[in-house]
């Protein structure tokens, strides 16, 4: 067989290192945040401007990789000349804007939002949100004792909402959904940040198995016609779990260990490695407790996965764990 000469010889190196086309640099926008001048590139948001100044801004529904959905209203700031507070995650910076992030109005608004969330949602596995509640002095207990959990949230239709009695705090509580072996859905812990819907939709997975159903306080994340996951379009990539900020979506392994009281993050070690399946090269962060993989995530700030994995990468490690005898623990 005739093999061309280049088969034996490495091609010459390019004279220049290949680079993507140079993009025009964006003009800078100058604005004032808390009395100080900030410059950000055109197209940046007020949240970017706050970060540029090192101002710690609470967010719930914001995800750096996704288009802002503007639903939580925790990141609001005061914009001079605007009638209402504006969501910093989506409002674009404009020249000459004057923004305040620590006015009483901003603080009260953030506190109210956090209070409403904490009074209606179980935040026990959302330490960051609980810390924000404390920071802003939220007192969810002032809305009264918690109302009993509902069993009919999945079937509530718009316009059929019953007025609450007013003497107890309405809650989104409902039984945990365990309908498959890989992950659970505990919507008592759901703050409706929409990130799971975005992850399942066109921001990442493009499977569209879930959406927000219902209106007002009855709004909830649902599969089509509220069918179980095995009957839905779900492909078990678990990218919704990866972005859930409250633990409403959780590996079944984590849920089980928590129920047994043996989940212990202080005994867990996280190690980044590369998935052993196909040739894409996804970074897996293995969360290991007692020499057992208890959860798999992926870094959101690395370009190959942007935090996303497929069913094999996220869940397909059981056979490694179960081979041979019980794994021997290091001495």
């Amino acid at each position, binding site marked *: 067989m005739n093999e061309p000469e280049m088969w034996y010889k490495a091609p010459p190196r390019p004279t220049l290192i290949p680079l993507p086309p140079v993009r025009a640099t964006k003009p800078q926008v100058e604005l004032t945040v808390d009395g100080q001048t900030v410059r950000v590139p055109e197209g940046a948001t007020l949240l970017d401007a706050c970060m540029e100044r090192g101002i710690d801004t609470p967010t719930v529904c914001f995800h750096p990789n996704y288009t802002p959905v503007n639903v939580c209203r925790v990141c609001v700031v005061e914009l001079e000349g605007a009638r209402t507070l504006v969501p910093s995650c989506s409002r674009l910076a404009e020249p000459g804007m004057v923004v305040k992030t620590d006015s009483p109005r901003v603080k009260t608004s953030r506190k109210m939002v956090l209070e409403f969330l904490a009074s209606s949602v179980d935040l026990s596995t959302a330490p960051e949100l609980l810390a924000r509640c404390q920071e802003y002095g939220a007192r969810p207990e002032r809305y009264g004792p918690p109302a009993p959990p509902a069993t009919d949230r999945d079937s509530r239709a718009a316009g059929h909402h019953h007025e609450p009695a007013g003497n107890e705090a309405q809650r989104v509580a409902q039984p945990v959904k365990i309908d498959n072996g890989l992950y659970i859905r505990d919507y008592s812990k759901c703050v409706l940040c929409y990130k799971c819907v975005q992850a399942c939709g066109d921001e990442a997975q493009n499977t569209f198995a879930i959406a927000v159903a219902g209106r007002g306080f009855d709004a909830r994340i649902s599969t089509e016609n509220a069918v179980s996951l095995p009957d839905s379009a779900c492909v078990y990539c678990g990218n919704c779990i990866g972005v859930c900020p409250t633990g409403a979506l959780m590996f079944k392994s984590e849920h089980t260990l928590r129920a047994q009281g043996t989940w212990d993050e202080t005994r867990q070690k996280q190690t980044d490695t590369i998935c052993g399946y196909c040739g894409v090269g996804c970074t897996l962060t293995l969360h290991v407790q007692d020499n057992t993989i208890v959860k798999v995530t992926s870094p959101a700030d690395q370009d190959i996965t942007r935090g996303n994995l497929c069913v*094999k990468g996220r*869940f397909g490690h059981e056979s490694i764990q179960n081979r041979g005898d019980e794994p021997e623990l290091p001495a």
Partner: protein
Amino acid sequence: MGGGTNSYQEIEETEVILLWGSNARETHPIFFHHLLKGVHHGARLFAIDPRRTSSVRWADTWLGLDVGTDIVVANAVGREIIAQGWHNQAFIDHATTGFAEYRHSVEPFTLAEAERLSGVPAPAIHQMAKAYAKAKTAIICWTLGITEHHNGVDNVSALINLALLTGHVGRHASGLNPLRGQNNVQGGGDMGALPDRLPGFQHVEVDALRQKFEQAWGTTIPPTRGWNLTQMLEAMGNRQLTALLVLGENPLQSESDRHHTEHLLRSLDFLVVQDLFLTPTAELADVVLPAAAGWCESEGTVTNSERRVQRVRKALEPPGEARDDGEILFDLARALGHDWGEFNAEKVWNELRALSPVHAGMTYDRLEKEHGLQWPCFDEAHPGEMFLHSRLWEQPLNGPPVAFQVVAHSPPVENLTTEFPLRLTTGRRLDDYNTGVQTGGFDSPLRRGETIDLCPEDALALGLTDGEWVRVVSPRGAIDAPVRLSNGLRPGLAFMTFHFQDSVNTNILTIDATDPRSGTAEFKACSIRVEKKSL
């Protein structure tokens, strides 16, 4: 050097994507995220596949060709581009040779002739040719639908010809990208696990290159290429090869024509299998060396489909007596009289860096900090190449021009006959992997076991219903499997996977015809018949 020419990021910015013989939605799901970003940004996606897969559903146009007619379609695209004057004459003159021969060779592949041979409507071929040639940037991606044929190398050449014809290579967001099926199949080749290569694609038959390694290793290296897997199987057949060390492979189940493979493995004098699991291949072995899992129980590197070398790290202690592959090989060397010292992954890597120019700049420190580096990376200041072959656009041309490869259509080795009238093709599903050794253990809600997928028309003609167990017969053997009706198949086409071989042994059916150059078997095409089981 062989590897995908572009980075994943570039497919998000390209104008036209040809996804050829690849169901990346299920087999490379996270790459498909990047591809879908491209589609959302306005790229036109053409899917060339016998099956209407879950990837195809995202395409603007589906070219549902008959199995094994890829060259017909590719050559027809090439002919149409030339006939319409859409080819990039300036690039052809500047950077290629053999255009006249190529033009002559594709002349018979008119749109009408291509439609007759491949089943793809002529307007669809015309449309794809126009979109691909006229785009400012365009990327071709392929997987095993191109390579798992008796003429897989020719199939790849046919696609490369299209890139040369239009200048869609060597530029940002334009190129040719084979998606790698295993996490280190790219790295294995890069490290010299090829019959004719030393690490870094350095040809063993080039004296100067071989001598460099001989000097570093203080030993002599056989000066001619070795066998590929197919040749090894042949050599087992004629007793030239009598002892075998198998590392992390399950050939008994992964090779085509299972009965034949089993006979060859059993005829060996000595078989050693080094694996995570006691696979069916390992069960035949004289000695089994239990290994640690490369991706989570040991330190090292792997290389992905965008040529990125990435670190794997130890997160778990391996069970029982399982040990790092490197430690086992070092011990083996010592037992054979060569003391390589203590095994250390970084030390081995640094030795590689000293011998392979394309890896020279990749220190462990940099791999850590920069989340991997793409080869070639010639020194520690080099960022790695985002896309390959930019030299082809330099004025004057830097290095030799690239030759068009004339390729002829050659249908699958096994013809359809009245006795075996159906075409069986094979592939993977989303939640399982190859022979199922690794994925079998997890509780996938998507798993439905092996089936013989048929289109509703064929099932109706045979009087079969969904879920009914049937006998599937090929010239090599017969197995039982349940029928699954699939709207993604056209009449005459059947589909199976390899995932559940302990229950349904698909490779009893497949043919061991292989491409003489790549050694890859024609898993994508054999002939079968489906028999209703008597009640």
